[in-house]
Each structure stands twice: as C-alpha cells, then as structure tokens.
C-alpha cells in the first residue's frame, strides 16, 4: 500500500502483505461493521428465499422480502429503535444501562399527543391543526425526555445509585404516569403536520425530493472523503491510498442511490392514489395513478440523528470523554475529566432521543396509547449490543448500533412475513442476541492475545 513520506520519525504505517486484511486496513473500515453488513445480507437473502418457498408459487425466486414495499416498511420500522440505540451506545460504553427508555418514549409520546389533541386545542381553546402545534409538541416532548434523563442521570452519577436500579424504577414510574395523565385513554387524532414525522406514503419525500436528497448525500460523501484526505496529507501520515478513497466514494454513493431507487420504486397504494386524484381534480389514467413514495421523513430524521451522534461521538470532546470513562474511569478522572457531569449528559442525551422516538412512534400510529414503547428498551439494548457495543465498556460505534437495529428489525419483519408466531419470534430474537454476543466475545478473546 502506498504511504506519504512522514515528516516525523518512524514510518507512518507498516507495509502489509496484499491480503484481505491489508485491503480492509487500507480502506480504513471497521471489520466488525463489514461483518454486520455480511450478516444482514445473509438474513435478507435467506428471508427472500424462504418467503418465496412458503409463498403461493412455492418458488424461492419469487420471494416477498426484497420488494420495494417491504424494504420501505423495514426502513420505517427501524427508525425508533435505531434513534434510541445511538444514545444507548454512549450509555453502555460508559458502563451504564438505561432500562427506562421504553417508558420515556411512552410518556413523551403521550404528552406530545395530549399537547396537540387536548391541551392546545381544548384547554387553551386555540383549535386544532395550528401551524405551530407540531413544533410546540415536539420541542416539549424532546425537552421532557431530556429532563427525565437529567433526573435519572443525576441520581446515577451524583447520587451514586446504580443505573440499573434508577432506570428500572424509571421504567415503572414513567409508565405509571402515562396511565395517570388521562385515565389511560387513547389520544387521537393528532395534528396533521405532526403526522409527517411518522412516515407513510403521505409523509415521504416523493420521487424528486428523494433523488435530490440522494444526490446531496453523494456530494456530502465526496466532500467528506476529500476533506479527510486533505487533512491527512497536511500532516503527512496515514493517507488512505487513492484507490481506497475512490472505492469508498463509489460504494457509498451506490448504497445511497440504490436506497433511493428502491424507495422511489414503491408506489402509493391504489386506494390512496385514487383519493389523492379525486381531491386534486386529476383524472386517473387507466391502471391507476402512479405516485412514487420515496424516502420516508422519519428515515431522514434517523439519518440526521446518526450523523449528529457520530460527529458527537468521534469528533467532539464529549464523545472522547465518554469512551475514556468506559475504558478506564480512574484515568478519566485523573486526566481532569468531569466524569460525573459527562455521565449525566449521556442520560440527558438518551432521554431526549427517546422523546424524539416517541414523536415518531406516536405519529406513525396516528395516536398515543398507554402501551407506546413497551419493551422498546430490550430491542434498543439488543440493537446496540449486536451493533458491537461492549458491555465491558469503552467499545461501540453509532453506525454499528443503527445497523444492529436494522438487523433486529429485519429478523422481526422477515418472521412476520413468514407468519411466524409472536412467541416464536421472541425465542429467535433472544437466541440470536445471545449467540451474536457469544460469537463476538469469542472473537474478541482470540484476537485479544
């Protein structure tokens, strides 16, 4: 592999034989992430074949998993778990746990529904569907989640109560409050703008919007790769080979544009398209009006959260400190890091993310129910851990956790497609979780030598 001459003593990177490992090393990609992508591919192809075999034609090539519709649904279903999993990474990396996020999601979702369906229109008498309603509800919901996180985080880091206990208590308390707010009634309908957070054909970017989004994303990939390369060159070490940079740009753009193409290939359901045609005075062509759905808005939110959390984790002091605390709490303290405040902030962060997930979830259901987010904490923890976050602390990545959420959701969605009973689904997910972690710690032990 090629290296720029280093200006300081010592060659920057040792030359490795041209092997698979050297290849991935040059790409600078985490092999764990690549492993997860491979696992995901196996799961997807497996479900595709099995759904074909068990389908009406019994043809393995005629599966229903890898269809635009199913992948669109999968992208939407992954959002809430993935949003919270990005926060769970920091919690677990710093050797804590948060069992309360399902209940925080439930409470914030319920409160946001109350704001738009009861408190603003009725209690304050301002009426439904005001232009500001969705934003007021969302901001209060996220702030409430962050506040709950702050209370729990304070008890953990300043009160010295184990996070397991504090958040187990939180799981009960916040869920209990949901039932107390409005006698546990289902709250609906919700504000029409707020519903855009939930996705569905009417809350997606459409054909043009999706392609514009995709192209902007590609420009972003090129820009960040080139900027990284320029910075590395400035200091004269660890410059990624040109071919590797080019390959990463091509691969990244291919993934983005492929995703856009699939989302755009999913048309609006015929009934909805007909209704839309009627409302807008369009005469439906024979065979029905074809409207491309495009990327769902909640998926855009998830992409934004993933980028922001990745930046926070890898490029900001806060993220560095969280990892240092996870690696060696004493060293962090002796390094002058305010360990308690940092730990408290991780809980504030996941609380706010649970609030955001609550908004997406309530908008998706178009209502708030008392069971909103029940057991979400388990999926979130599983997603983070399958995504490579280590319970011994100090190790984990945001993109890994999002991929972990996608793996979890793919399993659930695929089994649903195969009409596997819910208890059996739970059994499979449980076994996969333990097996994934078992495999991971086995690999870690072997490479640790």
């Amino acid at each position, binding site marked *: 592999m090629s290296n720029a001459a280093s200006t300081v*003593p010592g*060659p920057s990177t040792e030359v490795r034989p041209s092997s698979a490992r050297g290849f991935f090393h040059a790409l600078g990609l985490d092999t764990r992430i690549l492993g997860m992508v491979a696992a995901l591919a196996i799961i997807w192809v497996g479900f595709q074949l099995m759904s074909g075999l068990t389908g009406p034609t019994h043809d393995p090539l005629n599966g229903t998993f890898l269809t635009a519709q199913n992948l669109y649904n999968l992208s939407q279903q992954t959002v809430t778990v993935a949003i919270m999993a990005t926060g769970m990474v920091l919690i677990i990396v710093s050797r804590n746990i948060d069992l309360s996020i399902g209940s925080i999601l439930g409470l914030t979702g319920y409160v946001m529904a109350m704001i738009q369906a009861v408190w603003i229109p009725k209690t304050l008498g301002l009426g439904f569907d005001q232009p500001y309603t969705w934003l007021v509800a969302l901001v209060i919901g996220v702030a409430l989640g962050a506040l709950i996180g702050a209370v729990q985080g304070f008890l953990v880091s300043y009160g010295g109560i184990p996070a397991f206990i504090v958040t187990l208590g939180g799981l009960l308390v916040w869920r209990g409050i949901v039932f107390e707010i409005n006698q546990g009634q289902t709250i609906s309908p919700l504000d029409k703008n707020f519903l855009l957070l939930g996705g569905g054909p009417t809350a997606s970017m459409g054909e043009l919007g999706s392609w514009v989004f995709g192209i902007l994303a590609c420009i972003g990939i090129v820009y960040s790769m080139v900027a990284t390369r320029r910075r590395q060159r400035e200091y004269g070490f660890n410059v990624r080979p040109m071919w590797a940079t080019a390959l990463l740009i091509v691969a990244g753009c291919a993934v983005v544009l492929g995703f856009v193409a699939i989302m755009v290939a999913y048309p609006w359901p015929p009934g909805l398209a007909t209704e839309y045609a009627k409302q807008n005075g369009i005469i439906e062509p024979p065979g029905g009006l074809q409207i491309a759905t495009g990327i769902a808005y909640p998926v855009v939110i998830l992409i934004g959260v993933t980028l922001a959390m990745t930046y926070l984790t*890898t490029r900001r002091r806060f993220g560095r400190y969280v990892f*240092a605390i996870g690696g060696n709490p*004493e*060293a962090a303290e002796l390094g002058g890091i305010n360990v308690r405040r940092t730990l408290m902030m991780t809980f504030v962060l996941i609380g706010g993310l649970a609030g955001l997930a609550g908004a997406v979830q309530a908008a998706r259901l178009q209502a708030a129910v008392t069971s909103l987010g029940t057991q979400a904490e388990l999926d979130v923890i599983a997603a983070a851990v399958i995504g490579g976050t280590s319970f011994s602390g*100090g190790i984990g990545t945001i993109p890994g956790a999002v991929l972990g959420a996608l793996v979890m959701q793919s399993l659930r969605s695929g089994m649903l497609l195969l009409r596997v009973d819910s208890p059996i689904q739970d059994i499979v997910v449980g076994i996969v979780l333990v097996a994934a972690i078992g495999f991971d710690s086995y690999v870690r032990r072997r490479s640790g030598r």
Partner: protein
Amino acid sequence: MEPAVSPSQTPQVAMNRISVAFGGVHAVENVSIDLQAGEVVGLVGGNGAGKSTLMRVLSGAHPADSGEILLDGKPVTISNPRDAKAYGIETIYQTLALADNIDAAGNMFLGRELRSRTGALDDAAMESATRQVMGRLNPRFKNFKVPVKSLSGGQRQSVAIARAIHFNARILIMDEPTAALGPAETTQVRELVIQLKAEGIGIFLISHDIHDVFDLADRIAVMATGKLVGVVDRHAVSKDDVLGMIILGKMPGEITETEVATVLH
C-alpha cells in the same frame, strides 16, 4: 551530583503537615516535605508507607484532610487533577492511568484535547504532536492508531511519560516509573530524569528500587507507616542506612548495633 540549588532558596513545592486518613487508618500522618527547582527527591518506604497517597495529594487525585501546600512560597488549593495541572504539576501514576480503548494521542491529550476552530477534536494535530514527542522519547514507537491496550508495557509507559512531559511540567511526580520496564527502557527513563532535572524541573521520584533512588535523587525522603522517618542528603548516607530507615523507621543515628544486626541477617 550536587543539589542544583542552594537549600536556602524558597522551595518550589512545600507540603506542610499533610494528613490523610481512610476511615480510621492514617495513610499519611503529619508529613512535611519540600522540593527545589531542578532537584530530584526520592521517596522510599515499604508497601503502605503512604508515599503514593502523599503524592496523590499533590497531584490532586486525593484531597488532604489537613495541611497546606505552598508553591514558590504561596499557599495553593489543589482539589482536583485539573488544578494540579494548571500549576504545572504532572504525574506519572504507577497504574499509568491510561484509557486502554483509546490510542496514544487520545491518551496523551486526555482532558486537554486540541480542538479546531469549530471546537471539534483535531485528531491530526494531536497525532502529529504525539509523533514528535515519541520521536524524542521512544523512537521505535510506531503504533499510533491502535488502542494502547494492545501495546507492550514499555510502550504504554512511554505514553504515560510523554503525557507528563509534553505540557511543560514544572514539577513532575513519578510513581514507580520503571516498574514495568526492561533494562534498556529503564536506562532511557533514567536519562530522561537527568535531562528533565537539568531543565530545572523538580521531580518527586517514588521507587521501590533503592539503586534507582541512589543514582538519581539529590535527597531521599523515607516514609514508614504513614509517617516521615526523615529526609537525608544522598551523599551523607549509605544504602544500608536508608534500608535501616525503611525497615526500622528510625534515622541512622538512632539505630543501635543490635537493630542493624537484625536487619542485615
């Protein structure tokens, strides 16, 4: 080696009547010790003598229950490691205090990260600086991108030492700096101590190895069971004298022939 400065000068560090108790146990009891600029004071004593605890007070890792610290004659309050670093007191801990999951540059700048205008971590600048320090300290060091967990004991030690010397320390505390090192690396650390001393840095050197202390220290402070036995000029005593102080907890003049006999046999 003569002390670099005359003893009449205001000491760079003066710790006066320091006491630390853990529960009912007096880990450090009424200890006073001082350090001149460019001087090496060796701190010796058995396990649990209170050497490390005394130094943890100076590095801000543990608060003293009573006593005062003077830097250049002025009383200061050191209540956390950040305070100590702000006064130019750097510490190489016996445990090294490295975050195992982070690379060398991340550890070297831990708590003092270099940042770009946007406030983002400037990893390239930190790695560049780390490469420069390491080039001076341990030229064979090459693993800049891996977590320090996968480094050898000697390499980890160099990271901890690099961290202490990179930030223009005025006062350096070295707690068993050669404990994990092979002979070649130990020699390197010794040369470093001599070099830093010549630059006018005051050094507290905690060591089990009495030879280390005799080779490097100007004065030797002996502690036993939390108390200071005494501080002696290295040239005025023999190694046996110091051993006697460590084991019997008495100054050389106070030790009887029979006591010496018990120690030596």
